[in-house]
């Protein structure tokens, strides 16, 4: 599967309790009338009640950090207004397509979640932040449909902001910077967006899928939401499964579902045999070994194994793949996607890329492997955003999960490494916008109301 094919992924299926929640077997766009007829925009819970319901539901963010949403919302609500809500659908991870699917096909469920968030924290402006053009158009249409319907009463202003698709553009501070007219590049923290975000106001930046779950929680209640998934991370989550599987696409599963079941939904490994491994979290979560098929798909469970679920993108690596080649390609991606703002990121990701390329080319000695590990330790937690951590995760997971494979590459040429991996590791063509770019080059904005 290529990166381009992920732009509008097919739906693969669902393993949930009580059927699909966010995904519907549709390839068209759900209109305002259809959404209302299905019970949308009729939520009885508003204002502080949303926060209480969210707290009981135990919804955790689906953008990657899996942080409890109620705590984040409370932190914004407690600060003096005006406040903003941002729907973050930029999806910097190239292997992820869930947020753009939601905005393209079910924009109203995301918008209803954003309206509930605005009601809960007392925000008067909603920003829909997106890189995908069809998703942006669908969001604009949704805002126009809402505006045309007067039965809902006054609603916050809804603005759509389009930015170039880059890895760092989805980082919270990049989002705020782009909304304020700057380039979509990260800034140092503090302040964090919940303290001072868009226009200097407290801003709730929330992933599109998370807000879609919020819409269901305010409609059906926390109890129903907790009817699926694990106790610590209830509900369902969207996974973008791609790579060497027979039916790549979007899957909705209850948290805690085994990867083996998801792989079965995706038709199994292309070409048969056992998978060589999985790239998790898009590229951020590192590369996991075949043992992962029996682990529950849940942030905490995977984290204890040193794997990051991230935004729920899973790339299946077929039997014929060499994980060193995959790691080297991802390392190259991170080096290319550096915003070139922080020295540790520019030099650190380039050094990691070079060392991984040496390993892939059979030119590494044992000291180079130690050096690689040291580089990973040096870049972790540094810089304005988490991009260096992504590079560190790839290195550390490779060495931890595949020690034998890494040892086999020291001073030896691996023939499987010569096979291209671009078909499973889609690269972004666009380079990050440099900090010197003019704001109008980095975004387009439409104020819908």
């Amino acid at each position, binding site marked *: 599967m290529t990166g381009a094919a992920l732009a509008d992924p097919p739906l693969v299926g669902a393993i949930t309790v009580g059927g699909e929640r966010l995904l519907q077997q549709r390839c068209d766009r759900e209109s305002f009338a259809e959404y209302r007829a299905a019970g949308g925009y009729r939520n009885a819970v508003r204002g502080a009640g949303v926060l209480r319901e969210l707290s009981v539901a135990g919804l955790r963010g689906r953008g990657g*950090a899996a*942080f*409890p949403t109620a*705590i*984040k919302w*409370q*932190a914004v609500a*407690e600060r003096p207004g005006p406040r903003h809500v941002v729907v973050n659908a930029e999806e910097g991870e190239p292997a992820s397509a869930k947020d753009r699917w939601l905005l393209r096909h079910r924009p109203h469920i995301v918008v209803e979640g954003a309206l509930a968030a605005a009601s809960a924290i007392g925000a008067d402006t909603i920003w829909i932040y997106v890189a995908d053009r069809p998703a942006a158009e669908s969001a604009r249409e949704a805002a126009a449909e809402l505006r045309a319907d007067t039965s809902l009463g006054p609603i916050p202003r809804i603005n759509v902001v389009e930015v170039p698709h880059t890895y760092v553009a989805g980082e919270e501070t990049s989002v705020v910077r782009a909304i304020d007219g700057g380039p979509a590049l990260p800034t140092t923290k*503090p302040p964090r967006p*919940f*303290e001072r975000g868009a226009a200097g106001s407290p801003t709730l930046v929330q992933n599109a899928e998370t807000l879609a779950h919020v819409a269901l929680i305010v409609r059906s209640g926390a109890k129903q939401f907790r009817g699926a998934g694990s106790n610590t991370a209830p509900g369902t989550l969207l996974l973008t499964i791609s790579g060497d599987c027979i039916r790549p696409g979007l899957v909705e599963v209850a948290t805690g579902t085994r990867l083996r079941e998801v792989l079965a939904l995706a038709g199994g490994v292309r070409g048969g045999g056992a998978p060589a491994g999985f790239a998790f979290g898009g590229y951020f979560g590192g590369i996991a070994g075949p043992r992962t098929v029996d682990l529950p798909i849940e942030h905490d469970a995977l*984290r204890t194994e040193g794997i990051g679920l991230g935004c729920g993108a899973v790339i299946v690596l077929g039997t014929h793949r060499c994980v060193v080649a995959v790691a080297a390609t991802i390392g190259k991606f991170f080096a290319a996607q550096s915003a070139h703002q922080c020295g540790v990121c520019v030099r650190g990701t380039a050094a990691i890329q070079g060392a991984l390329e040496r390993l892939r080319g059979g030119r590494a000695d044992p000291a180079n492997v130690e050096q690689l590990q040291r580089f990973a330790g040096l870049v*972790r*937690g540094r810089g304005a955003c*988490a991009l260096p951590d992504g590079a560190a995760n790839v290195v550390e997971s490779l060495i931890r999960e595949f020690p034998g494979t890494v040892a086999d590459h020291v001073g030896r040429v691996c023939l499987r490494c010569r096979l291209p991996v671009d078909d499973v590791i889609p690269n972004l063509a666009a380079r990050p916008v440099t900090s010197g770019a003019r704001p109008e080059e980095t975004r387009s904005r439409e104020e819908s109301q």
Partner: protein
Amino acid sequence: MKLEKVACLEELSDRKLLRLKGPGYDLCIVLTDNKVHAFANRCPHTGARLHASRVRHNVLTCSHHLAQFDLCSGSVLTFPMEGLDVEKTGPLVVFDAEVDADGWVSVDLGEIELYGRGPVR
């Protein structure tokens, strides 16, 4: 136990943190749910100061990364939203605090001498 009077109950308003800083110690006290809690003014996650944090019932939410701690036991209720070694965040250092019949808040200074400069990780 080496209880020392550090503040008067009248100085404390509900859920507002009072910072007490002196040679060798930096701590906060807070009145919530009719109980006084004392803890080190240092987040176990990054070492950041906690005196601008929020308290609801017995839960302290760090203003920096929104980590949550139980003020009774110091245990981590919610790991920080981001940052280095999020899962390795240790418990908040809490001190024994008492209010006497005259309304004086006393804190176990013996513990402050041991831990007042911040949590031992």
